[in-house]
């Protein structure tokens, strides 16, 4: 009998839906059907059984071809390369669990590496804004249950986060929003007429690159001062109308995406968005949230913050303390300025996402990819190490875009002999300890729990 597994988490976008149902074959080895997932989520579950999926590490040979090697050899090469490099860069983590991120951090600290994640080229500017101005936010359930004005600024969830609008932000009927979409005013700020903009009650077709000016106009209006007739390509009346709607909301929610944090001014666009949210709280309840891209890209920000105090761009090369300053310690800057001499790409595809010039710099040095699948990065690597797919073959904690931790399940066993990210990096760590003749240490001794009886007898 095939088995139906319910409340399965989806390892695709930052919505981190955990209501999928997966029908698994009798022997627990094959995924037969998925229910509730969007098309992309569905594809991820089915892709694991693709026959083209690599099941052994592959090492680049002098003639340029890739040859299968053992995991031991791959671990040894990785450990030696990290130890030898003056400043390795370990980057990625769009698609792995927090357990893997924690294991990598131990390796990075030992290697004196720079540890960075996809936020560096994604919501990194949003972090800079959060450093400077805070983050009045909420969980997505608050949006579902309370929000009556929802602003989408420079984001298009209808495409990038397919179930966001039905689970959280536009359509759902929540406790205080029993009429669902009918009860919500949707404002979309975007230079394009996206599918989200088409759904909106108000579309402010902003002149590209002028987000900061428009936020400044909102804030000026909110404080009762006059503004010019047109700001960022939007007429004054329309700005005043939108500001009034936000101010009159019972609960105003602002979602922002790459369109806001990657146009000119970057972090400052988010910074002033945060100021605007704070201003709105003088009149009503308002909240703001970054539309994080991957299902656990909020994860490294959490794990590394509790381990080192910084969410991304961590320079651990100093040995005694971590240093962070995006612009200096961010992956692209490090690559472009030739500041690193080894690159490890984990659970992402830097080959596809980095500017070609940055990749050219990185390719001067050893280039290793750890990822379940063949991707552009794996194909230009010196070494590609496949691992299990989190959320399908490997359970673990992931952080949704609102930083809510969700304990993802596994639904089938991974290919035999293929480790998880965590197992792989623990092997690398142990190998580094052997090579340097140091004691490996783990925060938690394995298996020591003692019986104690706190009660009176």
């Amino acid at each position, binding site marked *: 009998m095939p088995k139906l597994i319910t409340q399965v988490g989806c390892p695709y976008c930052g919505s981190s839906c955990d209501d999928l149902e997966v029908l698994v074959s009798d022997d627990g080895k094959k995924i037969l059907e998925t229910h509730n997932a969007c098309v992309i989520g569905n594809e991820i579950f089915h892709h694991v059984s693709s026959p083209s999926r690599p099941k052994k590490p592959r090492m680049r040979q002098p003639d340029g071809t890739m040859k299968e090697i053992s995991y031991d050899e791959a671990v040894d090469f990785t450990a030696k390369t990290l130890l030898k490099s003056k400043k390795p860069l370990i980057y990625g983590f769009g698609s792995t669990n927090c357990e893997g991120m924690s294991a990598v951090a131990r390796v990075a*600290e030992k290697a004196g590496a720079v540890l960075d994640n996809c936020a560096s080229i994604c919501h990194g500017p949003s972090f800079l804004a959060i450093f400077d101005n*805070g983050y009045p*936010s909420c*969980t997505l359930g608050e949006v579902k249950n309370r929000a009556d004005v929802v602003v989408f600024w420079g984001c298009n969830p209808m495409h990038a986060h397919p179930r966001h609008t039905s689970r959280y932000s536009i359509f759902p009927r929540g406790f205080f929003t029993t009429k669902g979409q009918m009860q919500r005013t949707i404002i979309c700020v975007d230079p394009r007429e996206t599918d989200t903009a088409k759904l909106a009650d108000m579309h402010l077709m902003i002149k590209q690159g002028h987000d900061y000016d428009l936020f400044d106009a909102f804030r000026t209006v909110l404080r009762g001062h006059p503004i010019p007739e047109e700001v960022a390509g939007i007429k004054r009346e329309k700005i005043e109308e939108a500001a009034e709607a936000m101010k009159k909301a019972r609960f105003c929610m602002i979602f922002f995406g790459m369109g806001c944090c990657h146009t000119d001014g970057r972090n400052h666009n988010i910074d002033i968005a945060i100021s605007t949210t704070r201003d709105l709280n003088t009149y009503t309840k308002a909240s703001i949230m970054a539309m994080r891209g991957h299902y656990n890209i909020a994860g490294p920000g959490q794990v590394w913050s509790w381990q080192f105090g910084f969410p991304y761009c961590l320079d651990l090369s100093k040995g005694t303390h971590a240093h962070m300053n995006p612009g200096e310690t961010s992956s692209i800057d490090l690559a472009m300025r030739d500041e690193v001499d080894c690159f490890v790409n984990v659970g992402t595809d830097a080959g596809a996402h980095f500017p070609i010039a940055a990749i050219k710099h990185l390719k001067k040095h050893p280039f290793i990819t750890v990822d379940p699948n063949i991707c552009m990065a794996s194909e230009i690597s010196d070494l590609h190490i496949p691992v299990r797919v989190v959320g399908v073959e490997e359970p673990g904690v992931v952080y949704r875009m609102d930083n809510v931790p969700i304990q993802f399940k596994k639904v089938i066993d991974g290919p035999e002999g293929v480790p998880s990210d965590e197992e792989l990096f623990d092997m690398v760590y142990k190998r580094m300890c052997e090579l340097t003749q140091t004691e490996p240490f783990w*925060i938690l001794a394995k298996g020591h729990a003692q019986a104690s009886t*706190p009660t009176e007898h």
Partner: protein
Amino acid sequence: MAELLVKGGFVIDPTRRIDGDVMDVAIKDGKIVEKVGPGAKVIDAKGKVVMAGGVDVHAHVAGPKVNVGRLFRPEDKLFKSPNAQKNYRMEMGFSIPSTFKTGYDYARMGYSFVMEAAMPPLHSPHVHEEIHDTPIIDEAALPVFANNWFVLEYLKNGEIENSAAYVAWLITATKGYGIKLVNPGGTAAWAWGLNCLTLQDPVPYFDITPAEIITGLIKTNEYLGLPHSMHIHQNNLGNPGNYEVTLESLKLAEGYKAKNKFGREQVMHSTHIQFHSYGGDGWANFESKAKEVMDYVNTQKNITVDLGCVTLDETTTMTADGPFEHHLNGLNHLKWANVDVELETAAGVVPYVYDKDIKVCGIQWAIGLELGLYAKDPMRTFITTDHPNAGPFTRYPRIIKWLMSKKAREATLDTFKHKDKVIDATNIHGIDTERTLYEIAQMTRAGPAKALGFSRMFGGLAPGMDADVAVFDLNYKSMPSDPEKIEQAFQRASWFIKSGEIVVKNGDIASHGNKRTIWVNAKVKENPQVMRDIHEKFLKDYTVGILNYPVHDYLAPHPLVIDVDVEA
């Protein structure tokens, strides 16, 4: 496990009324024993003070808001992070240290246990992930309940049994320890941008008052017989004149009696009482009401308190009292983070500089110490800083110094720009009390261990208890005339043995020890109505599936589970 003998120190153990007797402490298999064999490793404690491991009843050390604090304050790390100890993890941050630094620093001060004081249930896997990345010390976490939709509904209808069934389910699901209240009703109101500043302000929609929530949760706690009492952060925190609300809330405990099998005697723990002992009707005539508050606490045996002392540092405030943080941001204009958590709670985070040259900060500093000096029963009054709210926990040794030395207090007063105004608004200058080492051991060890319901394990050095033994470089017979020496001794223990293993030697970390997560497994008889309510709310209102909500066992890999069985 090896045997250890801590030899010839001045032992201070209030659980057995031992005050400075020169004795040996024998350790075997992680426990304190009557004696050990001749092969035991000897630790020379001659001329030094020996105490049980410290117990922190209230600190924010793990979880989402603590991590927001870490994440959004890079400047808390800049030039402030000490160098890593060789072969140990990096230690980052001052006011909100990394998990590694948290574990190491508590151990260096000879602390065994820390209670994470506010766990948002939805985020409990996060709290446990951080706890298990915090080395050495044992930890537990208190889930917050006072703004939870289920609790508000049940208590509005006076359904204590249902409230208890839900609380038991949630504590077990989140691997929590007890019942925490933060700004009862006020945080629920904050979801609409409002607050409850008095005990009679009705909570929007739920139509229940803070007073009803407080008494309802005292009843729920005693119905369940949990190891710890109801633990409350009261309404109207941090505002001038709030001591009246404080006294009114404390009085709600009158008439209730502790019902449990853990040796706990109180029904209410009122936390960071310093923030709730303010007089005046504005910042201009802001003044201490420490005496008024402590006079009442002294008469009520069923209340315990912790101080929440201001340490005069640049720190990071963080609390589930969402509206307070918004209010604070309006005062200091620094960055503000907030998280409203669906159906459950909220939290806010704002950096804060307690500047000794600002009059109000000086008064706050005095109030915390006055409370510690006015307390008649050190077994019911515990040292905290509400870490990191009034200051980082690494300042406990400094607070001990101030409590033990009038000279040290006066020296600090002398550095204030508005010394005279601070003296006018407080009583600190006129208090000559100096706490003894025995009283400090009560306030940091025996007392909190009893209030948390594990005085059989922690807080003392009797045979059978956990072998958590701290040795401090202080001579009981001739205490140093320089109070700075007291602070130094408590900052870096000469030795600290945790669960029978040496984890600190000469103030340096020597081992990652044996860390445990302590949680309560509360069982009540099956309650179909409550289970139905839970399932329905998860289906309709939550955005996370009920199956993915309870914390998986592997996230608390070294648990110490305390069973509470109401049926039995």
